[in-house]
């Protein structure tokens, strides 16, 4: 029997798995079509171009009818699933420097909005009394494709995306904190959220936001994350060209406070139906 030669165990050296934070468009994680990247806190991050924004709008538009057509119950289940997956990835967010209680608050916010999915219609819609032999019913409907300029914090990001999608809108979100945003995209991608419902772009607001503000196929614009008043005014002017709904908070939003219904109702249109009463 040959003598087995036992070599000394090599020192355990592992190559680092270096991560590139890519965009999230149509349920996939593509690099920027421009091939550009930038470095944020030592990480390589895709730098979105106007064409990435265009592609994201196409993905959002394609996903919108089916997402709005899903039952409210089903959308609520999907949002709750996001909360479950976010909870499971808590450590990943704290490792990125997000305080633990902020992650908890973000999870709770998903749960809170999940509950609203099949209740908002009763609160802001209903049967209207009219002086005639008609049933008169008002029902809220989603505005459509919403472009969101999101705040940098995790709670801020969740607080602008969740109220938009819970009612059946789809979103194109320009984000500031790229690592947190794309980690949230990884949560969304594993949460039964159909591809295209949330699209996340990382990069410079000033470069991509004007293209979304003037885009004919975007129905609403949320400027919560814009901290430069000049840019906000410019975006509002561009949005006026197609009569987009524009959300522009007057003061800095405290995301830890109870958001109320306004973030949802701002992205809803009311449809009223008159129906003759038969005998």
């Amino acid at each position, binding site marked *: 029997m040959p003598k087995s030669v036992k070599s000394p165990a090599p020192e355990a050296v592992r190559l680092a798995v270096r991560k590139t934070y890519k965009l999230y468009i149509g349920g996939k994680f593509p690099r920027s079509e421009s091939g550009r990247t930038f470095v944020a806190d030592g990480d390589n991050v895709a730098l979105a171009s106007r064409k990435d924004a*265009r592609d994201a709008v196409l993905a959002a538009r394609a996903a919108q009818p089916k997402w709005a057509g899903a039952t409210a119950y089903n959308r609520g289940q999907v949002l709750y699933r996001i909360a479950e997956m976010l909870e499971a990835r808590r450590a990943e967010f704290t490792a990125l420097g997000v305080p633990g209680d902020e992650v908890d608050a973000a999870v709770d916010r998903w749960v809170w909005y999940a509950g609203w999915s099949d209740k908002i219609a009763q609160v802001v819609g209903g049967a209207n009394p009219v002086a005639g032999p008609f049933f008169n019913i008002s029902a809220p409907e989603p505005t459509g494709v919403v472009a969101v300029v999101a705040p940098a914090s995790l709670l801020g990001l969740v607080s602008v995306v969740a109220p938009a999608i819970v009612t059946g809108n789809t979103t194109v979100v320009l984000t500031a904190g790229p690592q947190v945003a794309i980690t949230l995209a990884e949560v969304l991608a594993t949460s039964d959220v159909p591809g295209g419902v949330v699209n996340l772009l990382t990069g410079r607001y000033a470069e991509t936001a004007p293209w979304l503000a*003037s*885009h004919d*196929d*975007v129905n609403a614009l949320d400027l919560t994350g814009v901290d430069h008043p000049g840019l906000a005014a410019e975006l509002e002017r561009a949005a006026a060209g197609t009569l987009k709904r524009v959300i522009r908070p007057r003061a800095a939003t405290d995301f830890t406070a109870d958001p109320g219904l306004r973030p949802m109702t701002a992205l809803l249109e009311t449809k009223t139906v008159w129906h003759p009463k038969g005998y």
Partner: protein
Amino acid sequence: MTVTVSAALSDLRSFLHGLPGVDKVGVEARAAALATRSIKTSAKAEAIDLAIRMVDLTTLEGADTPGKVRALCAKARRPDPADPSCPPVAAICVYPAMARVAAAALAGSGVHLASVATAFPSGQAPLEVKLADTRDAVAAGADEIDMVISRGAFLAGDYTKVFDEIVAVKEACGGAHLKVILETGELGTYDNIRRASWLAMLAGADFIKTSTGKVAVNATLPITLVMLEAVRDFRERHGRIIGVKPAGGIKTTKDAVKYLVLINETVGDDWLSPDRFRFGASSLLNDLLMQRTKLTTGHYAGPDYFTLD
């Protein structure tokens, strides 16, 4: 060589089978390489306007109504009502039953009227029926006829039958231009596409067209490349100029521009004209209009601002 109507079956067969085979890998690689060309700014603006002028705006549905055809004709005359500088399309393409309505709606506009005929899309009908179909369409005002070849006969090797049918339909067309649909998706191989192209051109086609739009595989870049090569070689040999019309599945401006590059690099820029190249399409036009609007206004256009039909 010259092939006449009376050509013996063996002559036609030996000629068609004597054509060099198509290098499948090569033709696909060439088409893919040309598709990467980047056409921007003013060249893109010209390409878009040219592509609009090349569109055969098509509706071939069982649900076509006179109203829908009239609406489409209005769109053909003036694709973008908001912009008078937008050129009209090349032609409207309808079923023979709708040709009369379309002819009235297009009168005086310069937009051609193409009608499919010869038992479109299958071509599985007796020759007398096909000829009657063709004469009907011409009498109704069509100045371009899109005929289908009998793929069954072609695949069975009965080339003279296909040849004679094309000759007979060409005669029935009178002064109308004849586009011969090869239905490339049913021919199986590039070799067959090359043979069918030559067969149609020898029989007197004015245009060769890829597909009906009714089968799974429609126009693709490599298929169109093979047909463009056939057209180029045919001119070299016979001096006659034949047009090419890819149809079905071309939906975006990007796709259309790839075809224009393919033309320019295969047969040269004298084929970059609606007289020699057409797109058989319906949804393509709206994408061209959206891209055109993007270039003129400086912001992205949306589908809500353009008519569906």
